[in-house]
């Protein structure tokens, strides 16, 4: 089970009215390398991974939901007061036709999230390498998102999320080292 804390992991402040940015940020909400995919990928893989690294997948998978919530806050702030005309001008006309102002798990091009974005191969090395790649892809996505806005407050939150991807990547690579290593095991033949 989870214990919910009624606050964001890191503050989200959006200082510029820029609904266009919401359309791009949604990539990290419902995209292939987004936070939803990350959370579901890790929390699902943790059942079939050596004991020593289950906790890591549990913790990182949980943190990804906190990131998902931050992205949701950004998208919501950017769209909640936008008029229909403003949404249309921001490229969100199709989104409005389908969802009004509601958030939806879709990527920046409007493609709905699908489970085929994530894998569970059951092989610990294969799964951890997928996780490492996913973190680096998410880091790159955050870089491109930071490149696309000049709102320094939005950039600040995105930079925090980018740094977390870097930390998660090193933790997954440490997990690979942990499951590779059997030098500490006493072997009796």
């Amino acid at each position: 089970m989870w214990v919910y804390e009624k606050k964001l992991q890191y503050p989200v402040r959006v200082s510029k009215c820029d609904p266009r940015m919401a359309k791009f940020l949604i990539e990290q909400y419902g995209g292939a390398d987004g936070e939803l995919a990350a959370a579901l990928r890790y929390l699902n893989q943790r059942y079939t991974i050596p004991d020593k690294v289950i906790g890591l997948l549990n913790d990182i998978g949980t943190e990804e939901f906190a990131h998902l919530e931050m992205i949701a806050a950004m998208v919501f702030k950017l769209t909640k007061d936008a008029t229909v005309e403003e949404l249309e001008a921001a490229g969100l006309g199709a989104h409005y036709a389908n969802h009004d102002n509601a958030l939806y798990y879709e990527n920046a091009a409007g493609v709905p999230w699908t489970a085929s974005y994530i894998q569970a191969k059951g092989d610990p090395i294969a799964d951890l390498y997928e996780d490492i790649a996913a973190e680096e892809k998410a880091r790159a996505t955050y870089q491109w998102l930071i490149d696309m806005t000049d709102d320094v407050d939005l950039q600040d939150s995105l930079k925090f999320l980018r740094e977390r991807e870097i930390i998660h990547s090193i933790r997954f690579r440490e997990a690979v080292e942990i499951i590779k290593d059997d030098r500490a095991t006493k072997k009796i033949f």
Partner: protein
Amino acid sequence: MKANPEERVYSVFHSPFDPCPPKPYRTYVVPVNQFIVFQPPGLPQFSPAEALRHGTLWPALYSPYTSRKFKGE
């Protein structure tokens, strides 16, 4: 703008028939995590407030990033 030590630069082929004005170079980032196989114990730590701001407890794992919009790229 202070140069980002994590940034790598490479030049790309330019054809005289390229339709758009050529970019002189391309950049990408190699974050600090690529140089640490397993984090050693006892690394220096940020204060809690600094750690929240940086997104990591350890200065050795902090990776700065500047928007290309601000760099004019």
